[in-house]
C-alpha cells in the first residue's frame, strides 16, 4: 500500500543523509574527542614532567645516590647533592601514622553508618562526612599550624609541635572522610539477601557484620584503604605546613620531617627553569606520579573486581 515501504534499503539510507545525520556524526566525533581527553591529559602529564626532569636523569644521575642518600643539599656551596631518602622517610612516616589513625576510624565509621545507623541519622552522618571531605588541604595545614601546634607543645611538653605527630593526625583526619565514603559504598554493595539469610539463621547484628558483611566487602574495603594511602601520599599543602619542614629521618613522632611533595612546593619557586635543582624536583614529581599511578591502578582493579562479582 504505502510505496515507501517497498523501496530498497539503499534509498532509505540515502534519504537519511540529511542535516540531522551530519550533525549527529559531527557530535559523535566531538564527544569522542572529549572522551579521549582524559587519556591525553594523563599521557601529557607524564610526557611534560618527564621532559622537564629528563636532563637530570640522563645527566650524571646516580640511582643509588638519588634514592638512598639522605643528603638533600640542592643549594650547597661546596657540593650539591640530591638524595631523597630523608624525604621518603618523611612522607612514609607521616602517611604511615595518618593511616594508623584513619584506617580504624574510617572503617568503624563506615560500619556504623552502613550497618547500625538508620533513617535520618544515617543521612545526616553521610552529609557530614561528605562535607568533612571537602575541607581544602591548605585549611588543614592552617589548623595544624595554629591549633595542633600549641596543643602538642602543651600536652607532650616538647619544644616544637610541628612534627610527624601533627602532620599524621591532620592527614589522618583529612583522609578518613574519603576512606569512609568509599568503604561505606563497599559495605552497601553487599547484597541485603546475605544479611537476611544470616539473620534468618539467628545471627545477631554484629555476627552478621563480622561473619558475613566484612568478608564479603573485603576487597572494596582494601580498595578504600589504598585510595586513602594514595591521597595521603600525594597531599601537599597540609604536610608542607604541619611537618616542620626540616630534612630528617625521624627517630620519634615528635621529630620534624619534610615530605617529598612539600619539598617541590617549597623549592620550585626559587629555582631557575632548566637548572639541575629544577630538574631534580621534577624527577621527584616523576616518582610521585609513577607511585600514585600504581596505587590507583591497583585500587581500581580491586574495586572493579568487587563490582563484577
Amino acid at each position, binding site marked *: 500500500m504505502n510505496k515507501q515501504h517497498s523501496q530498497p534499503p539503499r534509498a532509505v539510507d540515502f534519504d537519511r543523509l540529511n542535516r540531522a545525520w551530519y550533525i549527529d556524526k559531527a557530535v*559523535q566525533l566531538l564527544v569522542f574527542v572529549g572522551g579521549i*581527553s*582524559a587519556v591525553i591529559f594523563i599521557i601529557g602529564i607524564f610526557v611534560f614532567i618527564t621532559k622537564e626532569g629528563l636532563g637530570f636523569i640522563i645527566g650524571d644521575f646516580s640511582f643509588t645516590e638519588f634514592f638512598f642518600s639522605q643528603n638533600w643539599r640542592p643549594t650547597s656551596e661546596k657540593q650539591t647533592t640530591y638524595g631523597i631518602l630523608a624525604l621518603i622517610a618523611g612522607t612514609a612516616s607521616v602517611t604511615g601514622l595518618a593511616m594508623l589513625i584513619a584506617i580504624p576510624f574510617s572503617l568503624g565509621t563506615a560500619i556504623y553508618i552502613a550497618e547500625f545507623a538508620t533513617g535520618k541519622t544515617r543521612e545526616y*552522618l553521610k552529609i557530614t562526612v561528605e562535607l568533612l571531605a571537602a575541607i*581544602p588541604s591548605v585549611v588543614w595545614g592552617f589548623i595544624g599550624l595554629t591549633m595542633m601546634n600549641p596543643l602538642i607543645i602543651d600536652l607532650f611538653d616538647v619544644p616544637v609541635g610541628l612534627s610527624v605527630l601533627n602532620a599524621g593526625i591532620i592527614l589522618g583526619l583529612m583522609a578518613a572522610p574519603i576512606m569512609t565514603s568509599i568503604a561505606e559504598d563497599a559495605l552497601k554493595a553487599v547484597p541485603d539477601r546475605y544479611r537476611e539469610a544470616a539473620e534468618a539463621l539467628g545471627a545477631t547484628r554484629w555476627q552478621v557484620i563480622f561473619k558475613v558483611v566484612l568478608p564479603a566487602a573485603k576487597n572494596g574495603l582494601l580498595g578504600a584503604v589504598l585510595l586513602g594511602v594514595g591521597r595521603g601520599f*600525594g597531599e601537599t599543602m597540609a604536610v608542607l605546613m604541619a611537618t616542620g619542614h626540616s630534612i630528617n629521618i625521624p627517630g620519634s613522632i615528635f621529630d620534624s620531617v619534610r615530605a617529598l611533595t612539600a619539598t617541590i*612546593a617549597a623549592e620550585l619557586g626559587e629555582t631557575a627553569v632548566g637548572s639541575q635543582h629544577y630538574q631534580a624536583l621534577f624527577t621527584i614529581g616523576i616518582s610521585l606520579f609513577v607511585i600514585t599511578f600504581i596505587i590507583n591502578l591497583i585500587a581500581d582493579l580491586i574495586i572493579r573486581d568487587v563490582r563484577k562479582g
Partner: protein
Amino acid sequence: MFQATPVNHRNLSRQKLFRFLFGSMTALLILPVIIVLSTLIYKGAPVISFEFLFANPTNGMTAGGIFPALLGTILLVIGALLASVPLGVAAAIYLSEYAPNNWFTRAINIAIINLAGVPSIVHALFGLGAFVIFFRFGTSILAASLTLAIMTLPIVIVATRESLQAVPMAFREACWNMGATRWQTIRRIVLPNAVTGILTGVILEVSRTAGETAPIMFTGAVFFLPFLPQGVFDQTMALSLHLYVVSTQVPEMPAAVPYGVALVLIGLVLIMNSVSIALRMYLRGKKKW
C-alpha cells in the same frame, strides 16, 4: 515460651558493645573537626567585615582586606569551569551514550581515576611544564585555570556520567523509535533530564577548585600584587594561596587575620558543597521514575 539463654544475653551485650564502639569511633572522627571549625568561626568571625572582603591588603598584608585574593579565586574558578565543563560533559556523554564496552573505554576510565588521584603538586609541575613554559602562557590566570581545569575534570565527568546513566533507557528507545538521531535524543531527552545532576557536579568542582593551592602556586597565583589583574595573561592573587602566605610567610602578622581568611575560604567551600548536596536531595525527591 521464649526464654533468653546465656548465649542470647551474651550476643545482645556484644551487640550493644559493638554498636557503642563504632558509634564512638564515628563521634571521634567527626567531633574534633566540628570543634576545630567552631574555633575557626569563633576566632575568624570578628575579623570579617565589609572592608575585609572588599578592600585591598595594606601595610604588607597585615591590614586591610582580601579583595584581590577573593577576586582572583573567582576568576580562576570561572576560567577552570569554562575549560572543564564543556570537555567534561562531552567526555561523560561519550562514556554514557556512545562508548562500547571494550579495553579502550576501560583505559579512559583508568585515566579518569588517575587524573583524580595524581598528587596536586604533580598537576602543578605539569601546568608549569606544559602551559607556562611549552605553550608560553607565562605564569598567568590562563595557565593556572587550565591546570585547575585538568585537575578537576574527573569531578565533572563522574557526576555527569552518573546523572546521564540515571535517565531510563526507555526514554531513549522511545525517542529513537520516533526516528530521532542519537544527538537529537541526547539533546532533547537525555540532557534535559540530567541537567540538575550535572549542576551538582559543577558546583562540587567550584568548591574543589576554590580550595586548591598547590596547582596554582607556580602557574599563575602570586603572594602579593599591588593591582588587580587586567587580562588572562596577568598573574593574580588567590584566597587559598593567600591563607598559606598570611599564615606562614609574613612576619608580625596579627593572629586574627589568617583566621578570617581561613573562615572565608572554608565558608565558600562548605556553602558550595551544601548547595550541591541540597540540590541532589531535591532531585532525588522529585524523581518520578
